[in-house]
């Protein structure tokens, strides 16, 4: 899968962008603040319907503009796909696939996939359980768009259940109990399905992560990733029942998939606390790469790899390993300055050379 062309209008700092992209490895070069990451973010938006930096839509629309437009031409094994999104901070986003309007986000998902590597990927290993849940759930959506619905259902049921718990103000009347039973049943249904999908994906990732981590560390260490769910042995229904009084008192759901974690170990020890910064960086990289390979394997089409300023954080050995580990993928790399010799580029786009700068447009068609 490749992205052949990207057009942006009023996206973040970019007024007009028109870029033709090479199917190989492209380097986007430019000083910090010129919007290199914004370009990658726009590309990734079309694959996931949200900013990979977690930014709200308002932040994606250029100051003073009413809406931002992101358009891309994608080639999926010879099949051209035109993806268009009009982002509006006030109304609904409008999305079109091959000029057909889609009203549900899940109908955008699956047409185009990206794997993003960013400097803060380290948080995957060092950060809170929420970082790892987001990582595995994003991966599930890449593996199958229907998982987007599952994830949204769990979130919605939790919001409803938590609202009910707050309204109950600690008192379990018959009415509250009867309604709570219903939300529990809904949470059990969706939550157990989500946990099963997470477990299945992690099991499939393990051999891939081990192989990748072997290459990244010269076979020195073994990485494992397993789901930790407090409720796994008793089942979610029993667990919810057990903590019901506690949930009522605290006005929130204290057990379920929203509290689960992915335990990462390096040679049998917790990676979060027992690995060096370098090992943690390799582990995060290995997890992303393993996910990338699993998606390619399962969907039969290799996601476009977006590397946001990652080489500044990696030593030569890991840089070489990273590049060799995504052999068939189209890759777009951003960097502020000099590149490591290990990376061979098929195309270099210098944002400065294209006449771009903060608050201006980029590209052949822009005429800036």
């Amino acid at each position, binding site marked *: 899968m490749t992205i052949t062309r990207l057009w942006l209008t009023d996206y973040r700092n970019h007024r007009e962008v028109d870029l033709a992209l090479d199917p190989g490895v492209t380097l986007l070069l430019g000083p910090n603040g010129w919007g290199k990451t914004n370009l990658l973010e726009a590309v990734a938006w079309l694959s996931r319907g949200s900013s990979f930096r977690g930014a709200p839509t308002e932040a994606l629309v250029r100051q003073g503009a009413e809406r931002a437009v992101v358009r891309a031409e994608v080639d999926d094994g010879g099949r051209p796909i035109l993806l268009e999104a009009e982002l509006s901070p*006030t109304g609904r986003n409008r999305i079109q696939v091959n000029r057909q309007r889609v009203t549900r986000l899940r109908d955008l998902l699956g047409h185009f996939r990206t794997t993003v590597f960013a400097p803060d990927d380290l948080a995957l290993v060092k950060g809170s359980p929420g970082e790892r849940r987001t990582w595995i759930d994003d991966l599930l959506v890449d593996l199958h768009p229907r998982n987007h619905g599952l994830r949204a259902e769990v979130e919605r049921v939790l919001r409803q*259940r938590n*609202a*009910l718990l707050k*309204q109950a103000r600690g008192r379990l009347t018959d009415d509250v109990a009867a309604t709570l*039973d219903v939300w529990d*049943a809904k949470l059990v249904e969706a939550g157990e399905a989500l946990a099963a999908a997470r477990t299945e994906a992690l099991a499939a990732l393990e051999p891939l992560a081990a192989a990748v981590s072997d290459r990244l560390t010269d076979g020195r260490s073994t990485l494992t990733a397993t789901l930790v769910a407090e409720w796994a042995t008793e089942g979610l229904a029993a667990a919810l029942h057990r903590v019901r009084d506690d949930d009522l008192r605290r006005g929130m759901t204290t057990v379920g998939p929203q509290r689960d974690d992915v335990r990462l170990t390096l040679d049998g020890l917790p990676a979060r606390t027992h690995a060096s910064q370098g090992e943690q960086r390799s582990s995060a990289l290995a997890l992303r790469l393993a996910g990338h390979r699993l998606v390619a394997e399962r969907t039969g089409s290799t996601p476009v790899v977006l590397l946001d300023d990652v080489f500044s954080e990696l030593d030569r050995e890991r840089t070489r390993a990273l590049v060799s580990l995504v052999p068939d993928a189209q890759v777009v790399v951003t960097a502020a300055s000099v590149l490591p010799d290990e990376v061979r580029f098929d195309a270099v786009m210098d944002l400065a050379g294209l006449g771009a700068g903060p608050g201006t447009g980029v590209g052949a068609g822009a005429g800036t």
Partner: protein
Amino acid sequence: MYADAVQAVIDELGRLPGIGPKSAQRLAFHLMKLPSEDTARLTAAIDEMKARVRFCDRCFNVAEAELCPVCADDRRDASVLCVVEEPRDVVAVERTGEFGGRYHVLGGAISPIEGIGPDQLRVRELLARLDDEGVAEVILATNPNIEGEATAMYLARLLDPLGIEVTKIASGLPVGGDLEYADELTLGRALEGRRKLAGG
């Protein structure tokens, strides 16, 4: 921020479901630009609706008399009751031509986020009707989204001990949708393929 008269319209529009502050603002300025005949027609239509239309005493569908056209029709089978969220869902099921019973309009779905629990819906009224009208089967046709499903489950559990057959339309309807937008064929098939949940 705006002249009081404009702000008053923005505030009123902002109270409507699905209209946020920005949309309310846009609509208010649009209305301001309309010729007065157009706005007069709109306000007259609203007044007319309020004066003529009410809720059916029996099923809470929209009506122009004490009873809605369905309830007023004695050929309808009183022993089968189709429970829907809103009057517009009655229209959707009627369009299929597959249903010959009566309706019960709940007035929404259970949604704690919006402060709606069973007490805010016409659940007590539903229970009262079961005896009064000799209902033998209840078809739950709430929307195929999370709140609609939760409402159906709540009602199924509530009706289970009463010995009434409870079925639910399910198959073929897109998840996350509204009954209103399901096409006639799909909804007709869904009615035929309803699943038994309790009782009977």
